[in-house]
């Protein structure tokens, strides 16, 4: 079975002033990668005008593009419309579900969604108390359960999880400890470890570090643009 070249980047935060700037870095992407994964926070404020810029930057690329949205993409309460605009130009937008791409005879399965926060094992919020806390924790629990189901049902040769929020603390190194509960949740990693994957990529933590691993030994890469400082990271599976 041939190897796959996975390109990934998140937190590009495009708006009308940056149209065309990112596209220049994508002209020869087929020489570097077989697929491009976008790990959320594609816009600054989640407006439809910004989403149009994103759609134009990533349309008609020679490799398939799979995306999830981030918290910024939700800020203006138009996530469904943004996802539809990206879908219209051929970008597959995942909302806690799976997609399978055929790449040179290899089936690449990508499972993903925005993810959410809550914190990490032993130091996290619990589904207890006021309804606001239950809603916060419950959101993450439901997402993790949907990822677990999607991974369990996934039939693919290679498996990648695409998230905005981080499933592990490793890739947050550099961020203030106090905000870890807003950067991700161990429930996401627990779901992935239970069903297995070859790689997890996420964004969201601009001040974090690129490389980490889940408690179960699955490699995690923080591909937030301020962390990578390059147009996208490339990972060979």
């Amino acid at each position: 079975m041939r190897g796959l070249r996975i390109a990934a980047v998140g937190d590009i935060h495009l708006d009308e002033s940056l149209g065309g700037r990112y596209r220049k870095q994508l002209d020869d992407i087929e020489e570097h990668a077989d697929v491009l994964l976008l790990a959320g926070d594609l816009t600054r404020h989640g407006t439809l005008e910004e989403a149009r810029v994103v759609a134009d930057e990533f349309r008609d690329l020679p490799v398939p593009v799979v995306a999830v949205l981030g918290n910024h993409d939700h800020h203006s309460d138009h996530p469904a419309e943004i996802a539809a605009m990206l879908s219209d130009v051929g970008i597959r937008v995942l909302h806690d579900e799976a997609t399978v791409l055929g790449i040179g005879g290899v089936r690449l399965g990508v499972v993903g969604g925005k993810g959410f926060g809550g914190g990490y094992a032993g130091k996290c919020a619990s589904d207890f108390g006021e309804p606001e806390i239950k809603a916060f924790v419950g959101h993450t629990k439901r997402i993790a359960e949907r990822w677990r189901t999607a991974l369990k049902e996934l039939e693919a040769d290679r498996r990648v999880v695409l998230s905005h929020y981080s499933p592990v603390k490793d890739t947050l190194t550099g961020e203030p400890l106090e905000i870890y509960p807003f950067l991700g949740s161990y429930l996401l990693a627990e779901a992935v470890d239970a069903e297995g994957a070859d790689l997890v990529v996420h964004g969201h933590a601009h001040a974090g570090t690129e490389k980490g691993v889940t408690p179960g030994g699955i490699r995690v890469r923080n591909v937030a643009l301020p962390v990578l400082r390059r147009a996208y990271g490339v990972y060979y599976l």
Partner: protein
Amino acid sequence: MEAPQYVAARVQRALAEDERTHELGIRVDVRGGQLFLRGQVTCDERRLLIADVAGEAAPGLTVRNEVTVTEVRGPGEGERL
């Protein structure tokens, strides 16, 4: 005099919530009557807006804008997993 921690917190919230910025990753410190701003953005316009919003939220402090602009480079070398 207002404690510097509260001033810094107010500036940080303004940077996150003001529609001109919505920047969540800027570090804010108030030291010696000065407002230090650190972090990374992708264009100079955003760097300048950060200083504007921060200055409005903390009038009377000298703004030290140490936010840097990062250029997007090519993909570089891949990693074999």
